[in-house]
């Protein structure tokens, strides 16, 4: 049997806080990459040969 290492409440809370921050940062990056693509390439990015 494997002894599981249990996180303390403080550690769980800290991990939740870090995960939320990473989630928010990733969401901001998605928006930034989208907007920068439009700004730099323009709507013409949609008119490409398939």
């Amino acid at each position, binding site marked *: *049997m*494997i*002894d599981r*290492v*249990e*996180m*303390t409440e*403080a*550690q769980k*809370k*800290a*991990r939740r*806080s*870090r995960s*939320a*921050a990473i989630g928010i940062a990733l969401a901001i990056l998605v928006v*930034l990459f989208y*907007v*920068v693509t439009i*700004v*730099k390439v323009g709507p013409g990015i949609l008119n490409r040969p398939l």
Partner: protein
Amino acid sequence: MAMTAEHDMGAAPTEALFSEGNASDYFALLKPRVMSLVVFTAFVGLLLAPGSIHPVLGFISILCIAVGGGASGALNMWYDADIDAVMTRTANRPVPAGRIDASSAFGFGLFLAIFSSVMLGLMVNWAAGALLAFTIFFYAVVYTIWLKRSTPQNIVIGGAAGAFPPMIGWACVTGTVSVESIILFLIIFLWTPAHFWALALFKSGDYGKAGIPMLPNVSGESVTKTNIVVYAVLTAIAAVLPTVAGFASLGYGAVAAALGLAFIWYAVQVRRMPEGDVAMIAAKKMFRYSLVYLFVIFTALLADNLLARLFAWVA
């Protein structure tokens, strides 16, 4: 081979495995107060530069410079955790306080350093990206790892790292380095020693305890005070150069001259402090004024430029 599915993790293993550092501790690694000055001066450099930049790219430029500045802070806190622990001003930082382990701070700082420089290069231009990467390298390696513990002139050369942001902001728009951006660099570069040595005077006990060769500990109070006056004079001269070089008005020049004279006056008051003064009131006043001084100088440059644009637009 049969696995004995039993692992003796020893006593209290969770502290070593799982961090109690939350998001705000990681944010503190970025030295947000220093970052605010970096953001402000970079913004002024970006706005003063001739030409234009798309507002979204301007925002991203400032964001990348801010994150790059933060990365420098995290790398600094990783390397300096041992000396931060013995100084009252820095003992509660996340690494010496044990909330974040040193390797996490290093990984966090290195990732943000590479990410912010590459993003600035890809999204804005590579001159700005390269300047940002060089600035982070200069602060983390040249200042933090090399100079800080080896020479009392540490802050003179290391101060260059804090002086680069307006130059990067300028490069974001123009894609190059020019005389004007070098003048903006000079203002902060020459201001830094006077600002930091005023702090080092009344915190010399802390720096001595940590074994950092700051000027007051190595050369004594008298030499430090003289140097503060010299750098205050040089800063005051550098701050009027934008008018001399023609990218700020006479009005700005007058404001900068008045603020510079006050800066020199505060430095002279520090010079007049008796040797061995414990209260160091003049040094504390000089330190506080130096912060206001730099902020107002860059605000005046910004206001001057915006007014010039407004008049040009109306005419």
